[in-house]
């Protein structure tokens, strides 16, 4: 995993903002985004797809989720 974005505890729209910031910084590669609400899980996944990134996996992580996204 190249990078981890920790969006836990952040309210809307911060998780999406910092995920997109990381996506723009990297251009391609793999990112793990940690979120703690279902709203953030949906929003981050939706935003990553709209940026042309692929959702590899979403798995439970503590009380929240770890979303793995990638772009070749």
């Amino acid at each position, binding site marked *: 995993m190249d990078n981890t974005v*920790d969006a*836990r*505890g*952040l*309210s*809307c*729209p*911060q998780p*999406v*903002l*910092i995920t*997109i910031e990381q996506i723009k910084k990297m251009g391609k590669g793999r990112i793990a985004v940690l979120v*703690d*609400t*279902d*709203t953030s899980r*949906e*929003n981050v996944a*939706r*935003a990553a797809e*709209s940026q042309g990134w692929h959702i590899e996996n979403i798995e439970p992580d503590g*009380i929240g989720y770890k979303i793995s996204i990638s772009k070749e």
Partner: protein
Amino acid sequence: MVQIKSFFATRWGIVSVGAFIGIFAALLQKLGNPGNMGICVACMERDVAGAIGLHRAAVVQYMRPEIIGFVLGALLSAYLFREYRPRAGSASIVRFFLGVFAMIGALVFLGCPWRALLRLAGGDANAILGLAGLIGGIWIGVLFLKGGYNLGRSSQTHSSAGWLLALMMAGFLVLMLIFPQIEGEERSGVLFYSVKGPGAMHAPLFISLIVGISVGFFAQRSRFCTMGAFRDLILFRQTHLFLGVLSLLIFAFATNLILGQFNMGFTGQPVAHTMHVWNFGGMLLAGLAFALAGGCPGRQLFLSGEGDGDAAVFVLGMIVGAAFSHNFGLASSPAGVGAHGVAAVIIGILVCLFIGFTMREKSA
């Protein structure tokens, strides 16, 4: 369960929820709620503030069951779908003041974003100014978000801490059942009721409650948010939430046409005034406050139901803001802006700018 869960995250999910709110809001008006106010989170919280005597504006006192239902419905949905997340501690005091000034702004316009849409769907052209102000306020909020504005992280808390606003709402419902409205009386036990004016106009209690619970349930699932709709459009060019708002507007309009509740124009509109600058200005303040707090007033109620203690503090701020609005003569009436409404909007915008400029805490 998983299928239902994913449906609400889809485009059709959010459109269905917007349609549900639009249709039932128009129906609640038909069943007795005030004109173009089938559902208005700001007005209804203002009426709740009046019902418990935080302000004594005689025409706007009623314990609105819709508000109670929104929180309880969201709580139910969050538990049923395992999304209940008790959390708190993200600059609560800031959220309280954002709630206060959001309400002050909304009551200068006379409505929350939901009612702005419902007013437009009922033909009230003044709502165009309100919606323009709302979008302007959200746009300023987006500039702050882009500049690094951030209220910091919340942290996990006790399950019971996340229930508190829902318990308060359940308590309000119990009070309403113990002290029901008495025909022609301004008071029943500890609760205040309006004998005339918008506060005296309401759908039957249990219908309001059931619609409220249903809206709370579906809106929690779909993350319906009128502020988020415009914010995501401006910030990310994303249309997901906006489709829900558009759906609310279209279905409320269609239902109004069918029920004969559509009446186009600026003047003679129910619970509205025609001071364009302050319809715009009031909602500019409200939109900015919602954007800085991360949700429209409806969304803050649904978040409270799923355990967000910071959203609950925003709601309490709005209820207190309603008390200031009526006690200090800030709220508008059909005659126009209140005696000190303009000053309050200017102060509110300054407070929001202060918050936006100074709170750029790093999230890490």
